[in-house]
């Protein structure tokens, strides 16, 4: 029962990964790609780790640390990349 649950969680996480990563290919702006990437990638990764947590509860401390790290760092990272790339977008618009 728990096995099925953990496997289905991992499969859902991988679906999230594909959903977040597929918009990377294509001619959209950086911020659009960043949005889909940061939301769907982080959620997918957290779901996968949750599935692993159900599968092997003995490593719970490590996996919990990984979840917390993902939640905090990926959010901050999304903000930092957006902040750093926005300058260039404005400059390009001015030139064009």
């Amino acid at each position, binding site marked *: 029962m728990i096995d099925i649950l953990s496997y289905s969680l991992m499969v859902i996480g*991988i679906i999230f990964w594909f959903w977040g990563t597929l918009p*990377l290919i294509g001619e959209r702006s950086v911020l659009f790609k960043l949005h889909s990437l940061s939301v769907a990638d982080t959620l997918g990764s957290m779901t996968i780790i949750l599935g*692993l947590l159900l599968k092997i509860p003995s490593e719970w401390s490590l996996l919990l640390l990984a979840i917390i790290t993902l939640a905090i760092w990926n959010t901050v990272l999304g903000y930092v990349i957006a902040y*750093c790339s926005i300058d260039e977008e404005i400059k390009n618009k001015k030139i064009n």
Partner: protein
Amino acid sequence: MDSILIAMILALLIPIYEAWQDDDIWQKMLAFASIATKTSIMMLVISVLRDDWSIGVVAVIILCVGNAGLMLLAHLIKRINET
């Protein structure tokens, strides 16, 4: 479990392709962010698969450090384009 890992490798190939074909440096950085997260999650999966505690610890450290290094790199690249 093996098929899950192979699906993850397929998901990893998408940002690699993106980093190869796109010419904008920020798109490459996005692809790198995606790859860094994905590889460390794959390491975690492998550590659980093999029941190896030390690999799990290294995976979590790489998850932390990779993200921190990415922020550093983003700020440096921003400085390059400024002047």
